[in-house]
């Protein structure tokens, strides 16, 4: 007979968008050795286990309905930091916030960061995150010198680009389905100031939007576009681009000061008055088609060409500006749909997608564009092209229309030779996954999975969805 876990230990977990709720038995190891115990327990209970970091995936990546979830947030020690070489070695629960706050005062910055600083390194590697500099620096996996991992077989392995290379390229971006990272060694990037030189300008339509992303990529360190997806017609795809560049040595007279953590901290109040913690509550009543249309239109109309200097944290971590902003989307939460499309086909594909969303009356409230480059990780989402991330509000009434629309989006993306990212889209099916990854890749991943996890202990709701046999 199986071991039974106490039923009162079930905890209701959510995805980052608060659009999914799923119960699981949550275990939170404080020592690396407990990972082995967790695998043993999973085997005894005949359940499955999913790894969870900060829970910042927009979909079901860190959910395991009715199973075990291994929350790794308390494995959060930075083991070594070498300010000379810029090499950091840390446990998987260490957040990007911990990393940049450790390295910046020594004139370093993480080479790749997500839009929020609360993600954990384990999660960042599991999903192989990219930043606003993907076209230049690639994904975070390209800056991993080495990692150690605990496999469900009980084996502990060390992987680097040269050692166990196949596992290295599969575990990074492997959705946590092959093993648990126990330590991660990363190379930081040298910076000479706590500030970035930022330039912002408006783009009137999608064509200019993509053209500028292309034209600026040669001399930009970071490049990101905001898209007003509520605008249709001639303004379809209009928005604002931001380019940021590192300062050179000597450009910042106060470099020592600007690289202090205090200088980077985001303000706690808006206009020095309104506490940001209550802002999402104030936003909630306006999260209907009209509210974001007004805000986006105003943002576009008052947008001017300007240059300014901005702290790294303020430029990168836009999602952290308004704490709990995702709660403003209400009871049914939000979903994000991100498509990665080659540069040749992106314009037509997104024109079709954006027009479709207007026709269905379901405009995205936020759109973000980036420039990407391909990489050699097994489950890669990157292309030589662009990505567009769209945030949609979910309501009881719009679910079926939106599900239909996203199926059309998938069809358009696949026809354009595009790809998807497993930390974002919540509706990608196994059929779609196999089409963009290719059968050979899927077979390769399954073989590695069998080697690392012969009893299928590691399984998440995401894995069941995109790698189901159906």
């Amino acid at each position, binding site marked *: *007979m*199986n071991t*039974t*876990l*106490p*039923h*009162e*230990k*079930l*905890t*209701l977990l959510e*995805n980052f*968008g608060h*659009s*999914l*709720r*799923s*119960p699981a038995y949550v275990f939170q190891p404080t020592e690396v050795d407990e990972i082995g115990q967790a695998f043993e327990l999973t085997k005894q*209970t*005949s*359940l*499955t286990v999913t790894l969870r970091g900060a829970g910042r995936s927009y*979909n*079901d990546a860190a959910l395991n*309905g*009715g*199973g075990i979830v291994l929350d790794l947030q308390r494995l959060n020690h930075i083991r070594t930091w070498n300010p000379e070489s810029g090499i950091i070695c840390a446990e998987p629960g260490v957040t990007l916030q911990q990393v940049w706050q450790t390295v910046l005062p020594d004139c370093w910055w993480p080479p790749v960061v997500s839009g929020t600083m609360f993600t954990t390194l384990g999660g960042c590697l599991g999903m192989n995150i990219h930043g606003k500099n993907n076209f230049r620096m690639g994904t975070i996996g390209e800056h991993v010198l080495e990692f150690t991992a605990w496999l469900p077989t009980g084996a502990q392995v060390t992987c680097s680009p040269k050692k166990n290379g196949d596992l290295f390229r599969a575990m990074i971006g492997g959705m946590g389905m092959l093993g648990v990272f126990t330590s991660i060694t990363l190379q930081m990037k040298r910076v000479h100031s706590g500030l970035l030189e930022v330039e912002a300008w408006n783009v009137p339509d999608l064509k200019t939007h993509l053209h500028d992303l292309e034209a600026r990529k040669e001399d930009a360190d970071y490049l990101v576009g905001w898209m007003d997806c509520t605008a249709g017609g001639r303004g379809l795809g209009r928005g604002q681009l931001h380019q940021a560049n590192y300062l050179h040595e000597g450009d910042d007279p106060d470099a020592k000061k600007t690289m202090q953590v205090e200088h980077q901290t985001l303000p706690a109040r808006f206009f020095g008055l309104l506490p940001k913690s209550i802002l999402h509550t104030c936003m909630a009543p306006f999260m209907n088609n009209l509210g974001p249309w007004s805000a986006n239109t105003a943002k576009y109309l008052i947008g001017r060409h300007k240059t300014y200097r901005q702290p790294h944290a303020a430029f990168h971590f836009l999602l952290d500006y308004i704490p709990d902003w995702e709660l403003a989307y209400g009871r*049914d*939460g939000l*979903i994000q749909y991100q498509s990665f499309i080659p540069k040749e086909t992106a314009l037509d594909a997104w024109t079709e997608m954006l027009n479709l969303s207007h026709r269905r009356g379901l405009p995205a409230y936020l759109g973000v564009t980036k420039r990407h480059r391909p990489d050699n990780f097994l489950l890669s989402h990157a292309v030589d092209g662009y990505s567009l991330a769209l945030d949609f509000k*979910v309501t009881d009434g719009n*679910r*079926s229309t*939106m*599900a239909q629309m*996203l199926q059309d989006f998938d069809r358009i993306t696949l026809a354009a030779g595009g790809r998807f990212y497993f930390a974002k889209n*919540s*509706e990608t099916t196994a059929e779609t996954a196999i089409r963009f990854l290719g059968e050979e890749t899927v077979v390769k991943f399954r073989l590695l999975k069998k080697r690392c996890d012969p009893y299928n202990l590691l399984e998440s*709701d995401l894995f*069941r*969805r995109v790698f*189901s*046999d*159906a």
Partner: protein
Amino acid sequence: MPPITTPLPRRATPLQPRRRAIIVGASSGIGLTLARRLAREGYTLALLARRADLLASLCEEINNAAGETRALAYPHDVTDYDTLPDLLQRIVADLGGLDLFIYNTGISLPVGLKKYDFEKDRRTTEVNYLGALAWLNPVAAMFQSLKAGQIVGLSSVAGERGRVGNPSYNASKAALTCYLEAMRNRLSRYGVNVLTAKPGFVDTDMILGAKGTFWVIPAEQAAADICRAIRKRRQEVYTPARWRWVMLIVRNIPSFIFRRLIF
């Protein structure tokens, strides 16, 4: 355990949410009609009963109609208390969660107006009441911890008075009603809804050969009333509704009259 050939149901996504339910006692009667109705409403179901063949054909019928796995069969005897915690854990993992739990199992073993039979009474109590307790305790613990969920107990109008005809059945249903009320008082503060369903005479195996039945309704009607009450998160439902008023009177018949009645 469900047959290996049945693929597990798909998990919920934000745009395709799924409610998940367990029905204990689903092979016939009200349980069966509830299963069909809830499956049509989009629920993913774990169906439990002793009769494996009946369960298997019901699951097949539901899954064929839906064109996907929407029901899984778990042959189970409610008096098999020891295997229950493990089974519940397995089911919740197979369904990917649990939103609704329905305890429908019930038997009626009349002993005759002047006879006494402890074996029959014990069986009635074990199936109608102890089985319910064995299931509802862990389910309540789960829902309390999740601060969500719905529990439905199939009690009966028979639980409102002790009658000469079927003492242990009356007592088991009275105990179940009282227990469900206690659960409601415990769990409503955690956002958990507990519904006590009290059918009158329903056209199921239970009333086969029974004399003196009236206002007999088809099981479909009982299931429809109960499903509506589930949707509205009611605390109590009589089916058909007129029993509410009849039982109000019956509950208040003074003992010196009631003890002279024979039914």
